[in-house]
């Protein structure tokens, strides 16, 4: 999806440290892989995302999920960011839990599967593959 944002400064937040090499020299943060099944990590992850948002003050926040993306979009709105959710292409039968709950907080709420699009959202506007 990077070509959509060419010309903009991009900051990355992910749970996988090994991805740093693919995005050099952009700023890159890792957060704990929290979920409903790992709540301690979830709290640390939310706190770090809040800190990153306060530091970076993004204009636009985009995520394919799951929990880190959910927190980034919800908290990102407190900072006035435009929020974009692109539900992962791996969610082919139904939206992810975070993808369902993010609806009211995503300025652009997308699924990558046409059969999952709904009149009230999410919309289908193509896929990453």
């Amino acid at each position, binding site marked *: *999806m990077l*070509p*959509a944002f060419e010309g903009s400064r991009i900051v990355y937040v992910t749970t996988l440290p090994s991805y740093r090499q693919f995005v050099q020299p952009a700023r890159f943060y890792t957060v704990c892989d929290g979920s409903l099944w790992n709540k301690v990590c979830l709290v640390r992850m939310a706190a770090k995302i809040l800190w990153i948002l306060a530091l970076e003050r993004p204009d636009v926040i985009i995520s394919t999920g799951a929990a880190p993306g959910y927190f980034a979009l919800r908290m990102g709105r407190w900072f006035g960011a435009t929020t974009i959710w*692109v539900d992962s*292409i791996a969610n*082919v039968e139904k939206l992810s839990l975070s993808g369902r709950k993010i609806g009211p907080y995503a300025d652009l709420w997308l699924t990558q599967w046409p059969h999952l699009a709904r009149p009230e959202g999410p919309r289908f*506007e*193509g*896929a990453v593959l």
Partner: protein
Amino acid sequence: MIFVTVGTQLPFDRLTRAIDEWAGLHGRGEEVFAQVGPTEWRPKHMRWSPFITAEEFARRTREARVIVAHAGMGSIITALELGKPILVMPRRASLGEHRNEHQMATASHFQALGRIAVALDEQELLEKLGSVSDLSAADRIAHTASPRLLRALARFAGCGIPSAVADANDARAFEHRDFPAAPALEEEATIGAQGGV
């Protein structure tokens, strides 16, 4: 090289035995490597390992001419990202190959996009093995998203038209034209801007 993979959680001998037999009869000259999972059975006509690391998985996918796999999301997405033709046989819960029938749904959705070949049984598997490399010749994977998605993202984020799509036409094989057109994005972009961008 043909790379066969069945994931790490359960064996899938219905697939791997069929390929092993094929390799014995027809496969001479082309290397076949199979990641066969936790099975007691031992292949006779192909190189194999029950499990491989993520790095080896990516490497073998990159080196393969064709991937033959269970309908696991990781296998499918890796193959598509690396531009490899993939022939998929879904695991069936009814045969004890999986906990549920998700693989049938996964396979049929990706097949509907024209991105993968699907075989439901051993006979179909062997029939399609011969022609699967024709599959995505017309649809080489770009390492970027579809032009439609790039345009939608760029417009919404307030960026200019991405150069990657400035000249692209919309006639990509898997865009679904028969879905109702989404309302004009310009309206929503304005709403987004009022939200404080």
